[in-house]
Structures are given as structure tokens and as C-alpha cells.
């Protein structure tokens, strides 16, 4: 038997209650996820295994408010490699869902996520031109050299996004299915 009942209350229980996190209590802390993680290789200190360990130890507040849960690049290497099929990357997704629901919305990662629904409600499509600012705020300035290079090749997306047809259908679905 697995699932929420065994994991108990608090953050581990909340993670286990989501389809993305339902197998968290099967984790044996083998560390294969961290061993295959390209972000862990690039950024010392990032570790999916540790994120899962901290979740199981109910160190919620700290984790949900952190930038760390937003560093996963969703490459699925850990999902492919996990010996217990717990889908570590999906557990990080579950933590992101919980962070947003509990109001931890100040990190760049959370702001990036929140931009999507706003854009889709407005036009049905993503507005790539404003995404960097919505994510990084004033720190967007660090992206100026990058933007200049893109501009020289005519690759700055237009801030004017054409509305899709049937946007009223999309808005109705958003209202009906949002929490």
C-alpha cells in the first residue's frame, strides 16, 4: 500500500494527494535522480534527492518559499532513471503547485508560471515579449545584452499578440476549471 494515508499529514501528505506526487512515499533515497540531473551538475547544491528528503521531513515553509524548487529544467532524466518509479521531477511539480496555492508567489519561478494563465486569458496565446519582465521584474536589465543580440536578427517577438478565435470558449473553461 502506498499513498497519502501512509505518508501522513503536512507537506508530504499534500504532495501525495496530487497525481504528480502520489508515489513520494516509495522513495528510497538512492540518489539516482541527483546523479542524472543536469541542473545538479551545473549548479552545486541543487539536488532532487534532497528536495524529496526535505519534503518527507516536512520542512515545508523553507522549501516552498525557495528558488530551488523552480530550478528543475523538467528534462525528465530523473523520471526515466528512477528505480522506484516515483517520478522525482513530477514531485517537484507537485511542490510548485502547492507553493502557488499557498501563496508563495514571489520567486522568479512562481512569477514565470503565473504569467501563463494571465496571457492565455487575455489572448489565448503566450506573450513572449513580456514574459521576461513578468518573470524577472527589474532584473530583466541583466537580459539586455541578450535582447540586443536577438534584436539584430529581428528575433524580438512582437508584444502585440493576435487574439485566437473562440477566446470566449477558452475564458469559460478557465473560469469553470480553476480552483
Amino acid at each position: 500500500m502506498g499513498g497519502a494515508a501512509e505518508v501522513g499529514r503536512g507537506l508530504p501528505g499534500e504532495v501525495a494527494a496530487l497525481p504528480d506526487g502520489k508515489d513520494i512515499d516509495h522513495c528510497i533515497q538512492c540518489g539516482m535522480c541527483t546523479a542524472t540531473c543536469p541542473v545538479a551538475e551545473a549548479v552545486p547544491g541543487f539536488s532532487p534527492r534532497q528536495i524529496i528528503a526535505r519534503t518527507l521531513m516536512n520542512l515545508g515553509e523553507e522549501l516552498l518559499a525557495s528558488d530551488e524548487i523552480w530550478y528543475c529544467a523538467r528534462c525528465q532524466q530523473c523520471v526515466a532513471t528512477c528505480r522506484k518509479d516515483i517520478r522525482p521531477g513530477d514531485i517537484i511539480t507537485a511542490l510548485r503547485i502547492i507553493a502557488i496555492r499557498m501563496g508563495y508567489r514571489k520567486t522568479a519561478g512562481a512569477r514565470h508560471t503565473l504569467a501563463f494563465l494571465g496571457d492565455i486569458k487575455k489572448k489565448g496565446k503566450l506573450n513572449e515579449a513580456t514574459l521576461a519582465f513578468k518573470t524577472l521584474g527589474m532584473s530583466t536589465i541583466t537580459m539586455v545584452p541578450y535582447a540586443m543580440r536577438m534584436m539584430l536578427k529581428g528575433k524580438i517577438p512582437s508584444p502585440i499578440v493576435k487574439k485566437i478565435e473562440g477566446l470566449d470558449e477558452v475564458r469559460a473553461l478557465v473560469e469553470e476549471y480553476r480552483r
Partner: protein
Amino acid sequence: MSAARFAYYPGCAAEATVKEADRAMQAIAPLLNLELEFFENMTCCGAGVLHEEEPDVSLALNARNLAIAERAGVDLLTLCNTCLLTMVKAQHELKSDPALAKRINESLAKFDLHYEGRVRVRHLLWVLAEDVGPEAIRALVKKPLTGMRIAPFYGCHILRPEEVLGFEDDRDPDSMERIIEALGAEPVRYDARTECCGFHVMLVNKPATTNMVGQCLGGASDKGADVMVTPCTLCQLTLDSYQYLADKTREKPLKLPVLHLPQLMGMAFGLDDKALGLNKHLVAVAP
């Protein structure tokens, strides 16, 4: 033979930032006998990111897109690995939660839509490898890419999770290599061909993406690749535009052009450089 019809879903990147991918796709489609129909009423797939805020909204919107294709009686064709995985995952979710699927269908009925599960979500690479096939591709080649050493870069969301996507071995894929050979070039074997470009953290963790880009391009360059090609618009965007940042961590600049798969096809089919948008790359494509 009549053309194979598809609901063409280029993805946000090809529609806004790397438009040359869309352009090249439109240019090669008639040669491959593919008829692409763009549906003005389809939404952004949410890229798995919308799922982090509103999982049910993300599922309902994907069900709507899929139902639009089903109503037209066509399969979906995308140029973006993340669109592919997001839509295929949505299909799995709808199958595994019949109660939610039923509720979503009741909502879609108001718009004269119904999701049955008949529609197949396809990536250009899959259509080329499976439907068109290397033989037919070889027959279309006018300017064989003889002597070119090409590094295939698959991208994550077309390979993993294999049990969800189910197209080819995620540890040892070969669809790209077979296409590169059909075009007359030599595929370069290197370890990073199934690694991650870092796109999904390029804003929130720039150092990680820079490092990942350097690993992927460096791996190909060390094995003597002249050019890299990828089926994914997001990988192309990252590997081309972050290359100058990766260069800062290396002794010598990489100068490795990164092509979209439809661009490479078009080159071998003898299409004009401009029609393929080869002038749109940050790392110049050598003539």
C-alpha cells in the same frame, strides 16, 4: 497519392521568436506531400507550466485543442518537443481519469466539441521517420549534404518519459541519424545528443542553462561536428541564443550553427537559403 493532412501546431516559439522554423516547415511541406492546416482557434498548450498553477485548466484547454483536431478529422503536427509532451501527457491524463474526462466533455459539448481520443499527436520528426520514411526523403534530395558532419540533438520532451511518448528508445534513439544519412550527410555520435539544453530554466537560472548549453554544444564540437540540428524549436532557440554565454566559459568560441530540422531538410531539397530563414541565426550558418 493524396497529401497527408494535419492540424499544424507550430508552437509559441515558432510563431513568435524562431519564426524561421515555421517558414522552413511551410517550405518543405508541399515537397513531402504534407498538407498543413493552421487552426486559428487553438490555444497555447501551457507548456506544462500552466499545469503548475491550474492543472485542470491546463487539461481542459488541451482537451479543447485535441477536440478541434478531431472535429476536423486530422492528426496534430508540432515542431516543439514541449508541445508534444504536454499534449501527449494530457491524452494520458484524460484516459486515466474517466470522470474528469467526462466532465470536460460535458463542458466542450457547449462548443460543439467532443474529445474521443482518436487524434494522434505527432512531431515532425516522427512523421518524417515513420510516415514519410528515409527512402522517400532520399528521393527528394537535390543537393546531397555530402561531407557535412552533423550532430543530431534530440531534446528531452521527444524522448522522455519513454513509457508516455513511446516512439523510440530514449537511451539510444536513431530517427535523427537515419534522416541525416538520407540527406547524404554523416551523423556525429556524441554523448550529449539526448541531454537537456536548459530552455525551461533560461530565465530563472541563467548559469544552469549556460552550463548545459556549453555541455551539449561542446560535446558535439569535440567530436568534430560542423553543424547541429534539432527537431525542437525551444532547443534551437536556447542552443543558438545562449551560445555566446557558453563561449565565455571556454578557451575558444564554439561557432557551432544550430539548425531547425525543417531547415536542414530544405537545404538538401535544394531550397533557397532565404526561404529557409538561414540568415536568422545568431551563430551564422556558413554557406
